[in-house]
């Protein structure tokens, strides 16, 4: 099945991004660089997983719901990324050079 193959590829790619996000959180030197890794990699990862599932969705409404979930997570993580970075800065956490 072509669709199944495409879904599988998207899922694997999504997993790689989630793995990269976690590795970034573990390996990067300060809170700012860790935020970069987490926010960007996990959102692409979730986007790819949503795309993989959307290909298998039984109805258009389900596709829409999956996209809605992804958009909500985008809002939550960009907001939290900005708030955490901003609070770290105000608390005087100096960026790693």
């Amino acid at each position, binding site marked *: 099945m072509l669709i*199944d193959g495409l*879904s*599988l590829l998207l*899922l694997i790619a*999504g*997993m790689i991004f*989630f*793995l990269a*996000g*976690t590795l970034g*959180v*573990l390996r990067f030197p300060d*809170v700012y660089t*860790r*935020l970069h890794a*987490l*926010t960007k990699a*996990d*959102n692409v*990862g*979730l986007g790819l*997983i*949503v795309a993989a*599932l959307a290909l*298998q969705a039984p109805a258009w409404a*389900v596709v829409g*719901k*999956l996209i*809605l*979930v992804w958009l*909500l*997570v985008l*809002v*939550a*993580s960009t*907001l*939290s*990324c900005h*708030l*955490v*970075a*901003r*609070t*770290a800065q*105000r*608390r005087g*956490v100096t960026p790693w050079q």
Partner: protein
Amino acid sequence: MTLVYLGGALFLLLTLVAGLWRVLRGPTAADRMLAAQLFGTTAVACLLLLAEADRAPALRDVALVFALLAVVAVVTFVRRNWRAAGEDLDAD
């Protein structure tokens, strides 16, 4: 595909557990707050995979509520724990 979805969900759980190390380690409070974000995104992805694997559409609703709550949780957490003196986080 069911096995693939279950495997994917398990893999995501493992990355989540690895991320816990950062929560324990810190070193700053900001590093621990960052973990809340990690949990939110990964949990939503897990739930979406499980909804498909179990043919349980209700889990998609759980993912949706998680995503909604993540927005509220983040703002509340930052406001309560890390409010800078005299500053309003809504001001820009």
